[in-house]
C-alpha cells in the first residue's frame, strides 16, 4: 500500500487518453461510480519495477479546469481536494500531437496547481505524415515538465512513461502562469482574504462556483468573499485563456515546427463525402441499416442458444431436486428464468456497443451529430440525441446513459424522456406473437403484411418519440443557456483493443444494473403467482379433480395450474384491474400479462403461456402452441379474446406504455429526482391507454 503511486490521467477528449489507460493497465481495470453521481470512475493498476505499483485513475475528458458538465466537474473536485484518497502524486496529461496547442491549455492549468506533471504526447507516429517536428528538450524546459512521446497504435513510449511515473518525485512544481497577472488588484484582495491558500486554487474555486453552482467544500469555503459579477468573472476567464495561449504560443514557437506542405490531408477528403449534403445522409442511412441488421438478424443465433440453454437449465434444476418443493420452483422458475431474461439481451447489447464504439473511435459520430443537429433541433433535441435514440432500439437503459454528453440540459432531459418510445428489443417478442395472431398472412408488393406491421411499429415508436419531444420542447420552461460545441476529431482506424474493452465494460454495466431490477421483479412476480389467499388457491388440486374427472393427467395438471394462477395474488390483481382495461379489449388474463410486463416487457409472452396453461406440461412445443391456445381463447359468451381490434390495441399499448422498471430507475439516477421518471411513467402510460382505447373502440 505504502509504495503505491497515485496517478491521475487527464486530457482533452479525443486525445487517446483511454488508449493510454488501456496500455498502462491492460485488463487490470475496473469501472465504478463516483459516490452520489453517475459518472464512470475508471481505475486500474500498473506494475512498475521493483514491486512498485501505480494506481491509475482515468479521469473524464475535459478541455479545461472550468467544468461545464458533471463529468468534467469530477476532475476539478479531485484536483482541488488534497485530502481525497485519490489525490494524485503525479498527473499524467495526455495530449494529441496534432492538437498540442489546445491540449496545453489544460496542462498549464494543472501545472499552476503545483501538481507534479508528466506530459504525454500521443499519436507521435503520425508526426512525419503531418509534417510536425518537436524539440522535446526545449519543450521540457519551457513547460517545466518531463515528456513521453507515445504511440498507443505502434505501442511505443509506454515503457518510458512508466519510468517517468516511477521517478515522479524529481518532477518540478514550477508554475506556468502567474495567476495574479490576470487582474492584479482583484487577486491581491483574494489572497489577503485567504492568506494561507494558493491563489490559483482560490481562483478556480470561485470560477467553479460561478460556472457550476455552489458546491460545499469543507476545506475551502469562499462563499463569504465578495466576488465579482458573472459577466466580470467571465471576462477574467477569457483573459486567462488569452494569457495562457500567449504563453503556449511562445513555447511552441521554439519547440514545435510544422511544415504544412508535408501534411497529407485525409480529413478533408473524407469530410467531402461523409458530410456531403446528399451522400452524407445516404451513407448514414446505410450504416443504420447495417446496425439494425446486426441487432435483429446476426444476434438471433446466440440469443436462441441462450434461450435453450436457460430453459434446459431450469428443467435440469427441477429434475435434479425433485423434492425441493417451493425452493426448487423458486430457483427454476423465478431465479433461473429471471437471469435468463437478462442474459438473452447480451448479444444485442454487445452488437450495439460494438457499432457505436467503432463509430465513435473512428471519428464518424461527430460527423453524424453535425449532419443531424439542425433536423433534431426542430424537435427540441440535439444532434447528440441521435446516439441515444438509435441505442434505444436495443435497450433504453444504455440509451439513457448515453445522453450524458449532451451539454444542454433541456435537450438532454427531452432526449431522456422520449427515448423509451423507441422500439426496444424487449417489445419484439410481444410484437411477434401478437402480429402472428391477428395480422393475416399475405403479401402486398412482395412484402408480407406481418413484416410491414412490424416496420410500422418501429416507425410509430420513433415518430412518437420525435412528436413528444416537439411537445415537450414547447411546454417545458427550463432556463439554461443553450450551447453546442462539437469537436470534429481526426479520422482514425479504431483500435480493436479499445473497442473490445468498451463493449465488455458497457455490457457488464448493463447486465449488473438492469439485471438487479429484472431479477428482483421476476422473483416478486413468481411469489405473487405462486401464492394465493383462501380455499380456492390452496385446494386447487381437489377442486379441479372433482370438476374434471375424465381428463388425462397432463391436461389435468394444466387445468390446475391455470386455476391456481387465477386465484393467486397476481390473478387477483388482474381481476381487479379488469374494469379499467376492458374498454381496451383485454380480459383479466391479459391484465396479468400487463402487470407482469413491468419487470420487462418480454415477460408478457411467458406469463400468457402460463395463464393459458401451456406452461409446464407442453413447453417444448414452443410458440405455436401458445399461439393456438391464444387464438382459441374466448369470453364466456363465445366471442374471441384476440381479435384484430384487441390485437392492434395491445400492439399500440406496448408501443407507448412505460413498462420498464429498470429504465425508470436509470432515469431517476440520471435526472437525480423522482419527478421525471414519474412524469414519464404517467405520461407514457396515459398516451398508451388513450391510443389503445381509440384503436379498440374504432376497430371492434
Amino acid at each position, binding site marked *: 500500500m505504502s509504495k503505491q503511486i497515485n496517478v491521475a490521467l487527464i486530457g482533452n477528449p479525443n486525445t487517446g487518453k483511454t488508449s493510454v489507460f488501456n496500455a498502462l493497465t491492460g485488463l487490470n481495470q475496473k469501472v465504478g461510480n463516483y459516490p452520489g453521481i453517475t459518472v464512470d470512475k475508471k481505475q486500474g493498476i500498473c506494475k512498475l519495477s521493483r514491486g512498485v505499483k501505480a494506481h491509475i485513475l482515468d479521469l473524464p475528458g475535459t478541455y479545461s479546469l472550468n467544468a461545464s458538465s458533471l463529468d468534467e466537474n469530477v476532475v476539478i473536485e479531485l484536483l482541488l481536494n488534497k485530502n481525497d484518497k485519490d489525490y494524485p502524486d503525479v498527473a499524467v496529461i495526455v495530449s494529441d500531437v496534432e492538437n498540442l496547442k*489546445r491540449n496545453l491549455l489544460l496542462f498549464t492549468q494543472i501545472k499552476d496547481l503545483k501538481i507534479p506533471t508528466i506530459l504525454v504526447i500521443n499519436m507521435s507516429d503520425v508526426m512525419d505524415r503531418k509534417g510536425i517536428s518537436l524539440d522535446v528538450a526545449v519543450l521540457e524546459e519551457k513547460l517545466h515538465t518531463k515528456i513521453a512521446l507515445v504511440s498507443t497504435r505502434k505501442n511505443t513510449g509506454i515503457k518510458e512513461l512508466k519510468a517517468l511515473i516511477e521517478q515522479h518525485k524529481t518532477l518540478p512544481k514550477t508554475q506556468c502562469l502567474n495567476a495574479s497577472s490576470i487582474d492584479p488588484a482583484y487577486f491581491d484582495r483574494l489572497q489577503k482574504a485567504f492568506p494561507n491558500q494558493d491563489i490559483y486554487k482560490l481562483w478556480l474555486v470561485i470560477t467553479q462556483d460561478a*460556472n457550476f453552482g455552489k458546491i460545499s467544500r469543507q476545506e475551502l469555503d469562499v462563499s463569504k468573499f465578495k466576488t465579482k459579477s458573472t*459577466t466580470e468573472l467571465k471576462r477574467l476567464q477569457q483573459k486567462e485563456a488569452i494569457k495562457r495561449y500567449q504563453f503556449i504560443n511562445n513555447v511552441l514557437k521554439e519547440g514545435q515546427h510544422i511544415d504544412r506542405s508535408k501534411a497529407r490531408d485525409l480529413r478533408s477528403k473524407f469530410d467531402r463525402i461523409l458530410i456531403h449534403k446528399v451522400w452524407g445522409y445516404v451513407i448514414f442511412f446505410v450504416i443504420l441499416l447495417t446496425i439494425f441488421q446486426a441487432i435483429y438478424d446476426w444476434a438471433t443465433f446466440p440469443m436462441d442458444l441462450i434461450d435453450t440453454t436457460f430453459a434446459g437449465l431450469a428443467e435440469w434444476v427441477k429434475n435434479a431436486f425433485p423434492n425441493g418443493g417451493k425452493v426448487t420452483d423458486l430457483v427454476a422458475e423465478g431465479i433461473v428464468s429471471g437471469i435468463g431474461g437478462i442474459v438473452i439481451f447480451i448479444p444485442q447489447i454487445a452488437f450495439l456497443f460494438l457499432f457505436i464504439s467503432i463509430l465513435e473511435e473512428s471519428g464518424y459520430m461527430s460527423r453524424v451529430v*453535425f449532419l443531424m*443537429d439542425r433536423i433534431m433541433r426542430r424537435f427540441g433535441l440535439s444532434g447528440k440525441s441521435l446516439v441515444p435514440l438509435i441505442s434505444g432500439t436495443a435497450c433504453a437503459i444504455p440509451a439513457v446513459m448515453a445522453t450524458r454528453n449532451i451539454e444542454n440540459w433541456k435537450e438532454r432531459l427531452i432526449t431522456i424522456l422520449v427515448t423509451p418510445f423507441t422500439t426496444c428489443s424487449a417489445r419484439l417478442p410481444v410484437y411477434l406473437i401478437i402480429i402472428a395472431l391477428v395480422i393475416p398472412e399475405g403479401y402486398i408488393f412482395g412484402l408480407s403484411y406481418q413484416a410491414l406491421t412490424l416496420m410500422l411499429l418501429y416507425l410509430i415508436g420513433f415518430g412518437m418519440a420525435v412528436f413528444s419531444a416537439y411537445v415537450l420542447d414547447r411546454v417545458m420552461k427550463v432556463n439554461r443557456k443553450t450551447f453546442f460545441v462539437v469537436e*470534429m476529431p481526426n479520422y482514425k482506424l479504431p483500435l480493436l483493443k479499445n473497442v473490445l474493452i468498451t463493449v465488455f465494460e458497457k455490457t457488464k454495466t448493463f447486465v449488473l444494473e438492469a439485471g438487479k431490477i429484472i431479477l428482483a421483479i421476476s422473483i416478486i412476480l413468481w411469489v405473487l403467482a405462486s401464492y394465493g389467499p383462501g380455499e380456492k388457491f390452496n385446494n386447487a388440486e381437489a377442486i379441479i379433480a372433482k370438476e374434471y374427472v375424465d381428463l388425462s393427467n397432463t391436461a389435468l395438471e394444466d387445468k390446475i395450474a391455470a386455476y391456481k394462477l387465477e386465484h393467486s395474488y397476481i390473478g387477483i390483481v388482474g381481476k381487479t384491474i379488469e374494469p379499467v382495461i376492458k374498454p381496451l379489449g383485454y380480459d383479466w388474463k391479459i391484465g396479468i400479462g400487463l402487470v407482469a410486463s413491468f419487470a420487462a416487457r418480454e415477460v408478457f409472452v411467458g406469463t400468457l403461456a402460463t395463464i393459458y396453461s401451456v406452461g409446464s406440461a407442453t413447453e417444448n412445443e414452443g410458440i405455436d402452441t401458445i399461439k393456438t391456445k391464444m387464438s382459441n381463447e374466448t369470453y364466456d359468451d363465445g366471442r374471441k379474446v384476440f381479435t384484430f381490434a384487441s390485437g392492434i390495441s395491445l400492439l399500440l399499448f406496448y408501443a407507448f406504455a412505460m413498462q420498464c422498471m429498470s429504465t425508470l430507475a436509470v432515469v431517476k439516477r440520471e435526472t437525480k429526482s423522482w419527478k421525471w421518471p414519474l412524469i414519464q411513467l404517467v405520461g407514457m402510460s396515459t398516451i398508451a391507454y388513450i391510443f389503445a382505447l381509440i384503436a379498440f373502440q374504432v376497430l371492434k
Partner: protein
Amino acid sequence: MSLTIADLKKGETGVITDSSSNDIPLKLLEMGCLPGNVVKLLQLAPFSDPMYLNINDSFLAIRKETATLILIDKINE
C-alpha cells in the same frame, strides 16, 4: 454592421476581433475562439447550420446562433 463568423462563406477565412459576449460558452473560448486567432469556415450543414470551423488549429462545429456572436474581420487570400 460588423461581420461575424456567420457571414463567412465556405472556404473563407477571418480573424476574430471580439468574442466577449456572455452567451458564448467558455468552452469555445478555451478551444481558442479568442481575439487575434484565425478562423476558417470549412463546411456547412444543410440550412447553413451548424458550421464546421477551424479555429486556432482546432476543428469544431458550432451552431449558427453562436457564430453570430463572434465578431471577425475577413481576410482576403
